[in-house]
Every structure is written in structure tokens, then in C-alpha cells.
């Protein structure tokens, strides 16, 4: 073991040096944004962003927090993402269960149609969707715009519809790997479809549900396009769009914008750090077949 290992050492050093350099290069842009957010505007305007600091301050974070009314927009995002996530997972897990576990006629065609729907670029359908949304009336208690356009419900629905296909695909693959005997025993006992789904299958899907929640939270949180096209009232926009409030009409303080961006990115970065494993599992479950 040892004699064959020696000569490899320098190569290993090179490998580490290369990877460390790449990793550093990858973190640098984000580190730069953090650094910029800590420095006063007049200083970076004078010295540029690539300079040693004279003053470091957290003031911009407070300013971005209040000036962009971030708490309000975080709440908007939650109003959209939490129901969106729950409905997507519920609907997708039931559909996946029916496709993977029951002998439904046309189940394969369904799976293909759902999966393909998730792969379409959103712009392919956004124009008619926009028109459709303006035409669907909603009662005033559900949406103050009185239509699906410019309503939270509209955004929740499109997130559900768009992410649904991916979740069905991943969960159907996963459910196929659960041994059939478990539900077969229940079949003999005469358990209903709902019971087999809710009581017997879903609890076994915890890992895939955790992975998909992590991933879907990030995707729905990061959405920019749907809100841009399907919302018009500025005060109902999700937090990713709120950054524009920090751009002045004639003058933009980029350090303030940097602080705002970091605050917007923070939840996904925290989720990523805490649920690293689930996040990666969610991405790879879709790509390697269960």
C-alpha cells in the first residue's frame, strides 16, 4: 500500500491546489457582494470595490430591511410558497401513488404528459396563461384584484402546476422501489385506496418528501418570472422582486442593493447549509432512476 502511494503525493497536492482554486473562485463573487454590503457608498465610489476597507458597517442591512420593506415581502413569499409546496406534494404524491401502485389504465401516458409538462420553458405558455388569468374572475375576499391575475392564488396555482410533473416523476420512481408486499398485505385486509396511500405508502416516502420539499422550496422561493408576469401590484410581489425597490430612479446605491440581495439570498443559503443532504438527494433522485 505505502510504496505505491508515495509517488502519487505531488499529484494529489496539485489536485488539491486546483480544487481549492476553483472553490475559491466560486465563492469569490458571493464574498464580494457581502464585502460590498459592509462598506459605505462614498468609500467604494472613491476606491472601487477592489480595495481595502476604511469603514465596515452593518447599516445597509438595517436600511435594506426597512427601506425595501423586506419583512412584508418575506411574508408575501411565505403566503405563496408554503401552500404551493404543500399542495404540490400532496397532489403529486397521490398521483405518483396511483401511477406506481395501482393498475390505472393509461398510467404511463399520464406520467409522460406530466413529466414533459415540467420540462417546457415557461415562456411557451405564459402569454395565453396571462390572458387566461385576466379572464378568470375571483370573489373579492379571495383576491382584491377580483381576478386570478394579480392574486396570490394565481401564483400558487402556477407553481403547483409547473412543479407537479417533476415531483410525480421523482416520487413514482421512488414508490416503485418500495416492496410491493407491504401494500399487498393491506389489500388482503381490504384497506381502501386512501388508506393504502395515506397510511401505508406516504410514511415510507419521508426521505423523498424531505428531499423534494427542500428543492421545491428553493425553486419556488427563487421564482422571478411568474411573479413578474402574473402580478401587477407592487405590494403583493414576492421577496425576489422586492430588490427593485432599492433601485432609485436616477441613482442606485449598489452597496445597499448588495445588502438587500444578501438578505434575499439568506433563506435559501440557510436551507442549503442545514439540509444539504436533502437538497442534493432531491436533485439526483430525479436524474438517477430509483
Amino acid at each position: 500500500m505505502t510504496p505505491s502511494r508515495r509517488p502519487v503525493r505531488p499529484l494529489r497536492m496539485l489536485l488539491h491546489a486546483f480544487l481549492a482554486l476553483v472553490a475559491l473562485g466560486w465563492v469569490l463573487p458571493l464574498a464580494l457582494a457581502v464585502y460590498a454590503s459592509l462598506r459605505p457608498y462614498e468609500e467604494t465610489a472613491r476606491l472601487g470595490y477592489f480595495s481595502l476597507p476604511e469603514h465596515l458597517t452593518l447599516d445597509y442591512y438595517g436600511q435594506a430591511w426597512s427601506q425595501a420593506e423586506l419583512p412584508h415581502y418575506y411574508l408575501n413569499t411565505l403566503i405563496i410558497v408554503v401552500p404551493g409546496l404543500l399542495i404540490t406534494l400532496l397532489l403529486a404524491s397521490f398521483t405518483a401513488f396511483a401511477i406506481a401502485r395501482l393498475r390505472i389504465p393509461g398510467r404511463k401516458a399520464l406520467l409522460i404528459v406530466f413529466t414533459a409538462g415540467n420540462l417546457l420553458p415557461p415562456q411557451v405558455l405564459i402569454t395565453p396563461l396571462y390572458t387566461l388569468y385576466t379572464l378568470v374572475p375571483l370573489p373579492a375576499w379571495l383576491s382584491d384584484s377580483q381576478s386570478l391575475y394579480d392574486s396570490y392564488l394565481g401564483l400558487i396555482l402556477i407553481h403547483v402546476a409547473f412543479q407537479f410533473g417533476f415531483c410525480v416523476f421523482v416520487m413514482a420512481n421512488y414508490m416503485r422501489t418500495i416492496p410491493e408486499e407491504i401494500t399487498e398485505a393491506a389489500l388482503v385486509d381490504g384497506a381502501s385506496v386512501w388508506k393504502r396511500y395515506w397510511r401505508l405508502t406516504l410514511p415510507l416516502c419521508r426521505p423523498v418528501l424531505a428531499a423534494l420539499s427542500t428543492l421545491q422550496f428553493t425553486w419556488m422561493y427563487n421564482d422571478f418570472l411568474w411573479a413578474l408576469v402574473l402580478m401587477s401590484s407592487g405590494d403583493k410581489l414576492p421577496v425576489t422582486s422586492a430588490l427593485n425597490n432599492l433601485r432609485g430612479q436616477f441613482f442606485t446605491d449598489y452597496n445597499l442593493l448588495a445588502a438587500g440581495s444578501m438578505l434575499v439570498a439568506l433563506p435559501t443559503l440557510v436551507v442549503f447549509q442545514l439540509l444539504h443532504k436533502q437538497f442534493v438527494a432531491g436533485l439526483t433522485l430525479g436524474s438517477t432512476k430509483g
Partner: protein
Amino acid sequence: MAAKTRRYSARDVTVLVIGLGVAIVVNVGLIWGPTLASVGLSATGWNGIGPIEWVGARNYHDLAAEYPPFWSAVRNNLLWLAFLGLVATPFGLFCAVLLDRRLRLSRVYQSALYMPVVLSLAVVGFIAQLVYSHDYGVLNAVTGLGVDWLGDSSINIWVVMVAAGWRHVGYVMIIYLAGLKAVDPALKEAAAIDGAGERQTFFRVVFPTLRPVNVIVLVITVIEALRAFDIVYAINKGRNGLELLSVLVTENIVGEASRIGFGSAIAVILLVISLGFIVTYLSQLFKEER
């Protein structure tokens, strides 16, 4: 066996019809319905209000002949695809191969590389501004150049693609890393015993077994290239050299001029390209499953 062919009770059927019914209605109503409507509307001169008038292929003709942004968008989308496919994706694969070995700090390198994946593209677009800004951006400060990276329409697409690639590399790397982990180590050992070098082992033995992963990565790359939107929109709303097909579609809805028919024609072109890849991918996926 008798249990398997057992008829579902009335309650089971109700649960199934409701569950799958909702799924199908949402999917058809919000995804496939609008997609087909795009095709229909692309042959009309509708402006969102008033009567819908049939114009046949005129939108497509106008698009190709009298709308200069269209061709720059096509060019940019192709460039985007080429850059992701020929630079970012191979680099992601390369990093995955390097990281797929017992390596101290491997987790740290991995985290750094795929951190950008969780960032919203709107935030990525903003970070790009900090780096590339003409007056005080870091790139000019470090290199001593005075290039207007984002304002010069002949080069801005390239630097924006680098920012998009920043994110794409991590994504591709995660997927390949999972694929590489699934490769039977005995294969590599056998190749090593036969005297194959590391490079040979990879290209002759490992890479061919990654075929399913390659297909997925190819599809992701194509779809990402067609979906590209947020990052250019966050930088300059996709004008002045940063035109993309997705931006042109969106412009025709959120812009002042609401040209539904014309925007739909661009969407249909996106649809045709993406469907080509989606169909190839899915037919392969479901063929293997049989």
C-alpha cells in the same frame, strides 16, 4: 391474486377520480392548454382586447423579416446553449470526476461549487453587476482595463454567460457526482488491472456507463439554455445585446405594446425546439423502463 384484480369500492373510485381529476385539470388547464393556445394565437393578430383576427403565418414572416431583435435573440440563445454545453457542462463533469475519490475537504469543495445553485438568478444578475460594472467593478479594477463589460453590446452576452455558467457548473457536478457514485467500482479495478491509465479508464469504461446521466445532463443543459431569462432581465431587461427568445416573449406581455399573437409566435418557436429534446429524452427514458 384474487386480491389484486379485486374491483375498487365506490369510495375508492371517488377518491381516485377526485385526486387524479384535480391533477389532470390543473396540468391541462395551466400547462398544456395554454401551450396549445400559444400555437393557436400565434396565427392571429390579437392584441389582448377586441376581436381575434386570423393572420395565418404573417407573425412568423414579420418575426423573421422585420424584427431585428429576433435574430439576435436566436443567436444569443444558440451561443448560450453552446457555452453551457461545451464549456460549463464539461467543466462540471471534470470537477465531478476530480471529486469522486477519497479526498480530504471534498465536502468543502463540493459545497463551494454548488452554492450558486441555490441562489436566485435575480441575485446572480445583481452580483454580476458588482463584478462587471464599468466604473467600479472588480474585474476592471483587477485587470486595469476600462471595458464596459455589461454595456458594450458586442461583449456583454459573453460575460453574462460566464455568470450563468457559474451556476450551471455546480448543478451539473451534483448530477454527475451521483452518477459516478453509482458506477460499479469493480469495473474501474478491472480496467486498472488490465493496465489502463486513469484517463483511459474514464473515457473507455466509466463514461460509457454514464449514458443515462449524460442524457439527463444534456436535457437540463438545453432546457436551461432555452429558459435563460432572469439573469439578463435583472441586468438590463434583456436589451442592448442581451436579447433572448424568452425575453422577447415576456416583453410582448409586460411591455407597453400587448402583442399577444406576435409574442405567441416566438413562444411556438421555443416550443418546437424544446419539444424536440423533450420527446427524445422521454422516449429514451421510458423505453429503458420497459
